[in-house]
């Protein structure tokens, strides 16, 4: 059972050239900020390291931060054997969001990332099958959960807002 600071210290020791940060000011949980193209390597380390053993990805969600002009992805991961958890956060540019996929580490990330793509437009590189999941496959009017999303007038001949 490790605390967030200890996990952060372990990460910093093993990835000294990374720009990692531990944010503890906001309620309720501390968050570790990671660069978008390093998330997969760090996830693999967190998964394999014997003191950490984060074997379960609980949640992967996107958040649209309009004011900071960023789109963030939060990863909640947990260890079922050692019973600790941590939150990771990755932020990318809002106009062209790209994050490395973690499906090679946790297979359950597959559909979570598809949903993040569907709702926010975040492109996950190395994802086995990135396509829309909740919206129809040919929805062209954008990404619904972005703050500046507008409903289209027509979809395949049907009037959208009624």
């Amino acid at each position, binding site marked *: 059972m490790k605390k967030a600071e200890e996990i952060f210290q372990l990460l910093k020791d093993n990835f000294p050239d990374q720009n990692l940060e531990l944010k503890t000011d906001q*309620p309720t949980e501390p968050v570790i900020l990671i660069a978008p193209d390093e998330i997969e390597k760090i996830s693999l380390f967190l998964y394999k390291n014997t003191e950490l053993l984060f074997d*379960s990805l609980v949640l992967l969600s996107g958040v649209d931060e309009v004011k900071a002009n960023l789109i963030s992805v939060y990863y909640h991961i947990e260890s079922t054997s050692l019973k600790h958890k941590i939150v990771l956060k990755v932020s990318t540019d809002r106009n062209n969001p790209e994050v490395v996929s973690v499906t090679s580490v946790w297979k359950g990330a597959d559909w979570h990332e598809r949903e993040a793509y569907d709702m926010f437009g975040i492109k996950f590189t190395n994802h086995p099958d990135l396509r829309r999941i909740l919206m129809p496959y040919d929805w062209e009017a954008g990404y619904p959960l972005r703050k500046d999303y507008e409903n289209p007038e027509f979809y395949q001949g049907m009037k959208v807002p009624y």
Partner: protein
Amino acid sequence: MSQDLTKNTKVSSQSSKIRTEEMILNMGPQHPSTHGVLRLELGLEGEIVTKVIPHIGYLHRCFEKHCEAMTYPQVVPYTDRMDYLASMGNEFGYAVAMEKLLGIEVPQRVEYIRVIMAELQRIASHLVALGTYGADIGAFTPFLFCFIDREKILHLFEITCGARLLYNYIWVGGLSHDIHPDFVRKTREFIKEFRPNLKEINDLLTHNRIFIDRTANVGVLPIETAINFGVSGPNLRGSGMKWDIRRDDPYSVYSKLDFDIPVGKGTYGTTGDSWDRYFVRVLEMEESCKIIEQALDQLPEGDVTSAIPKRIKPNVGHVYGRVENPRGELGYFIVSDGSTSPYRVKVRPPSFVTLQIMDEICKGYMVADVVTILGSLDIVLGEIDR
């Protein structure tokens, strides 16, 4: 046994040099056995399944976008409608997450009533799961036996909050009404009648030879695969892992109550097959009865609406709160920007995560087994699509 059949078909098609194609069969959105509007695309070679691709999104109602336009208390009725068979659990999850974010403590009476409602809801939801599972396999009678008991539970909910399926009962900071004066007595009567009924359903279905032949060794889910995919709830416990949010990340008053966590042991086949997942649900109903009895004994007096804040305006921050729903771990990730509306509400539905493993565990089985496996996973499309 199933793997041998795949080998045989491959050899025969190679040796005869006839070009055989994989047949695509669509278990379409309207189908008696897919529990909701789900489209399963099956790739078949004869009767053996080679791939399963689920297509979802038919029931998408934009819950998460909707939340951003409402205030925090207004979100509660919408959370009911995601997993409509376990509404109390959904509301409970939202209340747990919000109370963590706001840092408020609710009276003990509220906590105990919430636990009683959640456990009654667990029994009701598992009764539906068992009944419909039996109906999928072909045994039509246990379905009605299960629904008789479910009617009694829905009556208990009706005298408490007026609704049978979608309650709007567990609010942030408390409850909407106190329980009815007859509630405790009627719940005790129900538990007394339920235990022999459960035994009757067990005799009819659980140990029936044909049922065992249909479900044992079908859809085996190994523990490592389950954890890697993030499966939780009875599906994970059926594979042999003792993981329960009520025990491992306790919320409300579960730490004061004494109950056991049933796991699958591979009684009739491999650990982690459909029969194990089914039987874990049967045992969980028994455990829920124990929890309800203890909670009724320990129920304190108090005011259920005293801690409900007049205006919910949390600080800037984020929270992840989770509960053990009948289908698994239901989590709410709420990001607040300091105003009265949530900035982002993300729901982690247990069935969403569970449906991903269909492709992994259906390979090599037959078409009839796909229905068996899907029924044993107990999904509800309402929470997958939100």
